[in-house]
């Protein structure tokens, strides 16, 4: 494919993602802004002052959200990678049932499951703990990890690994020098999914976190229905920034390492 066309596509995607954020940026510096003015009549920084105040709990939420999204992603990889490989490369009885069961968390509305799990977690004393919130975030994350990675493994096949083994590589060496580099770009995409899913959890964090674990969505969502658009815009920019950083990082590695789209594209 022509390289300049690909860059054009990347630029269009980035503009499409960033353009909706411009009004948010303006709103966050607004004091008075009424219809039909194109720009605010009076500008102000009171929304950002609130964001940086201790009362907003934005800083605390940011740290918790980042920690949760990272740890959840790591656990998703630990659980999802072997499962994806097995589903992609092996045939066994009841495989389609297993595949279907693994997809259930995306099909069934979360709120249906979460109520039962909440009671279970209370009994196991997992509510109000980082571990509990991380476990509940894993439920919607794992299916995406498996979905993406089984596609990658299916395309990748075992030929290269077999070759490495015949040439005397140990299984660990094979994984480190052959398998991992091959699936890494796909793994980055899958990790981006799990990161963003954990990042945007509200109901699950609210119920299981029990008010002890405050994340950004918990701080942001009450403002969205409110009348103070400036504060809502400022907090949502803080909410979007890390997600955007992850997206840009991934899209850059997609643009440079073209081989990876093979597995992802045929999914």
């Amino acid at each position, binding site marked *: 494919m022509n390289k300049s066309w690909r860059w054009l596509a990347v630029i269009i995607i980035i503009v499409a993602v960033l353009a909706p954020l411009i009004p948010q940026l303006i709103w966050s510096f607004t004091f008075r802004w009424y*219809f039909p003015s194109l720009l605010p009549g009076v500008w102000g920084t009171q929304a950002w002052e609130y964001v940086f105040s201790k009362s907003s709990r934005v800083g605390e939420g940011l740290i918790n959200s980042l920690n949760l999204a990272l740890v959840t992603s790591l656990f998703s990889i630990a659980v999802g990678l072997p499962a994806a490989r097995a589903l992609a490369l092996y045939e066994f009885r009841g495989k389609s049932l297993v595949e279907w069961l693994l997809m259930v968390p995306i099909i069934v509305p979360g709120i249906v499951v979460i109520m039962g799990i909440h009671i279970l977690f209370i009994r196991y004393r997992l509510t109000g703990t980082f571990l509990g919130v991380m476990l509940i975030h894993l439920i919607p994350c794992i299916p995406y990890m498996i979905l993406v990675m089984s596609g990658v493994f299916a395309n990748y096949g075992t030929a290269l690994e077999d070759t490495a083994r015949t040439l005397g590589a140990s299984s660990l060496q094979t994984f480190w020098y052959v398998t991992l580099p091959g699936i890494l770009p796909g793994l980055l995409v899958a990790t981006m999914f799990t990161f963003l899913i954990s990042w945007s959890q509200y109901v699950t964090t609210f119920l299981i976190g029990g008010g002890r674990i405050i994340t950004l969505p918990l701080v942001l969502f009450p403002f*969205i229905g409110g009348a103070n658009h400036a504060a809502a815009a400022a907090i949502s920019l803080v909410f979007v920034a890390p997600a955007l950083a992850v997206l840009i990082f991934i899209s850059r590695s997609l643009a440079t390492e073209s081989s990876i789209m093979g597995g992802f594209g045929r999914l």
Partner: protein
Amino acid sequence: MKSATKFHRMAIVMLVGLTLLAACAAPTPQTVVVTQIVAGTPVQVEVTREVSVTAAPQPTAVSETPPVYTSWDEVLAAARGTTVYWHMWGGSDTINGNVDSDIGGPMRDLYGITLIRVPLNDTADAVNKVLDEKAAGVETGGSIDMIWINGENFKTLKTAGLVYGPFTDLLPNSKYVNWDDPAMAFDFGFPVEGYESPWGHAQFVMEYDTAQVGDTPPTTFEALQEWIHANPDKFTYPAVPDFTGSVFIRHLFIWAAGGPDPFLGDFDQATFDKYAPKVWTYLNDIEPDLWRGGQTYPEAAAMTDLLANKETAFNMGYGPAGASLNIAKGIYPETIRTFVFDTGTLANNNYVAIPFNANNPAGAMVVANYMISPQFQLTMADPNRWGWLITADPRLWGQHDQDVLASYELGVATLSADVLAAHALPEPNGAWVTAMEEGWIKNVLEK
């Protein structure tokens, strides 16, 4: 046709799976008998709660009971140096900041109590959490110490026996609350009986734009009707069951009945049928001249935007000082003012309740006690800080505190406490509200 059979097989597998899943999650009603021994009086309550039966270990330590206190000194001793988790609606930066500085600050300085606000999107979320904890057998050490609550949410918890108390008699500052006033002792017609402590008072007011309406707003429903017909597209109200929309309809019922009395007792269909037609006729009459020809009704939050942007000329809501604060915060232009209907407007209270299984009921009581102190009520009434209506009766205060209250200058768009008090109406009982909401959907929305 091979793919079709494969599809069928897959569909059947999914269906079976879903049924299995539904069976696991299907709630089975269970009757739980709860014995609560609080403040010396054993109360037996039968609670029917839908409990999910799952293959899980049985709750441990069911024999634990919530702590009981018989004196304020005991409460203070138990509360000192603890942490209180207060679950409260978190969508206002003003309220969040004020709670931290004006309640959290003094709690830390006076008692070493750390007050942690847990922001809620909807108070019902906290109520559900308490119900879940009950179902899981968490009798002590629950995640919520205190909830900002009133109306239906309180009724749900209290009817299920899931509130701690009665505790208000233990609070020394409870003497500043006039419990003989039915407006305090009943929360939306439901008896409080010491299970929740008030903090702020709220009264419904209409907001209008003097630049569009002029200086004399329509203060009767007849005058409002005329104004709407003369100025089409400039008035609207939120669609029921939106909270604010529901309140607007309640006012029309009170106008139709010539007073709030018929709706204070238990629901009565004959009385309802007597006044309802007048309300539906009124609302259907104004509908063609509402904003966007009455084809759509906005949400309450959008009403603020509509008025700010002069798309409409009116807004409505429970905060008498809300318009002044919105002007100060740049949300409203400076031409917005408020009025109350000649037939009166509904008033209610904000309360705090303590869940039956609160981890720290003593700490919550100390916070609740501070919130009805003259010191905090004066801060709350300060138009430059909160601008809320006080819930205490200032006649029970010392002279100095009364003078401070009298010295406050009202916000530019705020009506005086006397005018508001003279027009305050008690809230109808919950059953009436439900009937009114259902009636509106059938007789106005679907007509």
